């Protein structure tokens, strides 16, 4: 029983991390129709920035805040410089551009920070609390709480602020947004900035559980894509729920199904992606078009 509770809570925690990165992927997909394969590498790069700040003796809390700010600016710069010229072109072109960005960021990080494996400190205390008779890491609970806070903040941002209204307007109908005086380019820049920031947070939270190197987000991206696919690629809510389902399933499978263990864990997200695409391509919460012509 204890083992089951631990497995599930830990699954929800790691699922929250997949969900956070999936959220970043979904934010960009919704507003631009681009599947950003470089989302994981953007998060990796940001995490290295945080690591660099820590090496320069910046306190952890401040380093995290600074990194989020830098990620926001970096995301905006990526949109302006690399994405803007191909925005609105066919999906294949845009996919190739984000793959190029993937390689660019991966190589740049290796060039700047090297290819060695580093350790990254957790922002949560290394402690555990009792939950229904099981020992649960504070980190796990903290990650879940933080993800929920991020989702809440994003909801307020999109539903209650003017800039959020602009982001929603542009994602639904850019042409008509322009006619209402909304600057589409600037709005998309902000969207990329927000997504990069959410991704950076995911990277900073994941790094302590794995090791920090230039490829550490590669696997996580696959889990996040599975989460986003399961949730329905255009649903932020779906991304989070999808992340939880994937995280818990993965943990249960590797704990209780003998032949899966930790080596075949990666089968779980791939199976989910395949199953969703076969059975329900729009995912659990994805939208079917409801517009009336």
């Amino acid at each position, binding site marked *: 029983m204890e083992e089951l509770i631990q497995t599930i809570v830990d699954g929800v925690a790691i699922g929250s991390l997949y969900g956070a990165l999936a959220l970043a992927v979904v934010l960009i997909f919704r507003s631009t129709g681009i599947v950003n394969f470089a989302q994981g590498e953007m998060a990796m790069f940001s995490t290295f920035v945080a690591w660099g700040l820590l090496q320069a003796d910046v306190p952890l809390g401040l380093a995290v805040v600074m990194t989020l700010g830098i990620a926001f600016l970096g995301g905006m710069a990526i949109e302006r410089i690399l994405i803007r010229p191909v925005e609105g072109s066919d999906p294949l072109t845009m996919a190739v551009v984000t793959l190029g960005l993937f390689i660019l960021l991966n190589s740049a990080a290796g060039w700047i920070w090297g290819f060695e494996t580093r350790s990254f400190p957790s922002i949560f205390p290394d402690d555990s609390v009792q939950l229904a008779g099981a020992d649960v890491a504070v980190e796990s609970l903290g990650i879940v709480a933080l993800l929920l806070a991020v989702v809440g903040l994003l909801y307020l941002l999109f539903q209650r602020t003017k800039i959020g209204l602009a982001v929603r307007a542009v994602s*639904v109908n850019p042409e*008509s*947004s322009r*006619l209402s005086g909304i600057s589409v380019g600037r709005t998309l820049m902000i969207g990329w900035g927000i997504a990069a920031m959410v991704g950076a947070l995911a990277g900073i939270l994941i790094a302590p559980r794995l090791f920090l190197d230039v490829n550490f987000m590669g696997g996580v991206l696959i889990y996040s894509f599975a989460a986003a696919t399961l949730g329905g690629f255009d649903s932020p809510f779906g991304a989070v729920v999808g992340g939880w389902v994937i995280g818990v399933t993965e943990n249960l499978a590797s704990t209780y199904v003998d032949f899966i263990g930790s080596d075949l864990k990666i089968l779980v997200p791939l199976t989910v992606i395949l199953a969703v695409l076969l059975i329900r391509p729009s995912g659990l919460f994805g939208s079917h078009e*409801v517009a*009336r012509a």
Partner: protein
Amino acid sequence: MSLLEVSDLEAGYGDVTVLRGVSFAVEEGQVAAIFGPNGAGKTTTLKAVSGVLRQRGRVTFAGKSIAGASPERVARMGIAHVPEGRGTFAELTVEDNLRIGGYRRRDGEGMRQDMERCFEYFPQLAERRRQRAGNLSGGEQQMLAVARGLMLRPRLLMLDEPSLGLAPVLTKEVFGILGTIAGEEGMTVLLVEQNARLALGLADYAYVLEAGCIVLSGEAKQMKEEQAVQQTYLGF
């Protein structure tokens, strides 16, 4: 001086030229209509004025040149372009659609008042204010599009075929409300319409566009009497 002055306007899509030197003017406080057959360049004219399409020629709005300006700048200068197909934000609520219409404004209180005024003009929208705009009927979406344009508190409201795809009774309703808005608020309107009878019913001044050229212009009242117009466009 006219509020909008367009001269020698040329525009098209890729290599295809649609407008071949179109000139017209819209006077402050009046309704101007451009009508003509399908493919004459009516929609293209509005797109060229609002900056959606690249154009050559002079476009002056309130004394300032807006030729080459981006659509968002043209909107900020006070031109609301209600596009063909209505430009509905289908997945957003009716209220959010109206908020987007007033996006460039900073007077929150004035916007709330204008929104209520739109709901007075279009009571159907008030009943569905929190519903997704994509679920509205075609007529309601047309009303929403006009209301969205009004939310900009424009100096010039440009309407692209408000009758398109509407049942005659709904068309009559929409045009009735447009007449009220133009009359009560003294709104300056540039209307593009295939249905000449509707256009002439609402307009003070009218232009006939054929194959990318203005072939006829005059007071709407006189235009109705003109034999050529009657035969070609009013079906007498």
